[in-house]
């Protein structure tokens, strides 16, 4: 049985950074969803989802990112995805979601944007 998803939540230059530490599939998407909700409950000015160590995301993970987009828009909070791997970028492309998200190569760039 796989281990639970560890998610680090930190504050960088006033932005809240949610950083899952491994893959996001159907078994782990609910944990990711809870972490994003928890981060938004603190009413940050900006939310960054750091995917730099995420080596695999399936459609459940993508659905969670789409939910995050919806929630941040409703709360008038900026959302940026940082550190997308080529695999995650490809998945965003084939689901035609790339244009929906603001992305940056690193968390530092995302927090400045």
């Amino acid at each position, binding site marked *: *049985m*796989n281990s639970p998803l560890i998610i680090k939540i930190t504050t960088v230059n006033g932005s809240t950074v949610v950083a899952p530490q491994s*893959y996001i*599939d*159907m*078994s782990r998407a609910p944990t990711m969803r809870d972490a994003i909700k928890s981060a938004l409950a603190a009413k940050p000015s900006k939310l960054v989802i750091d995917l730099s160590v995420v080596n*695999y995301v*399936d*459609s*459940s993970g*993508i*659905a*969670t990112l*789409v*939910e995050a*987009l*919806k929630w941040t828009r409703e709360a008038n909070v900026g959302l940026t995805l940082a550190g997308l791997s*080529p*695999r995650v970028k*490809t*998945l965003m492309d*084939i*689901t*035609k*979601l790339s244009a*929906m998200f603001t992305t940056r190569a690193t968390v530092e760039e995302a927090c400045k944007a």
Partner: protein
Amino acid sequence: MEREPEISIRIFSDPHLLATVRGAIEGLAKCVGFQDKSRAMLTLAIDEALTNVIRHGYGEQAHGMIWVHMWRSAHPRGLRIIIEDLGKATDPSKIRGRELNDVRPGGLGVHIIKETMDEAAWEPRPSGGMRLTLAKWLNAEEVAASYPAPPNPEQTNS
């Protein structure tokens, strides 16, 4: 499909087991000659198929049975996969991904499967549940980079 599959896996419909199946698929796909990107997409497509079975076939109950059978194909070079379950059957004509301009969570799995695989066909099993037959072939670059094709077992045995 007459000859025995290279790999057969039976799992419960428990999402926590998906990572284990992904590992087996990646391993066989590498052995067949799929390179990084197509191996990732093949693994993703099968993961999506299993997720759909768990979610829609078994209503996210973790005690349903799912069988995954994988064959190397020599002509054309690639992989054939059959996924079977005993869950709720669905009319194949109603299995389709959502419109991609309708941005909302969910409904992406079927789209990913159809976009990624060279063949994808759903059918009800006569004894209940569903059968999904998938195939993905090596592209020209992967064929050129891989070892010569193994003999075709169907021809060898005839």
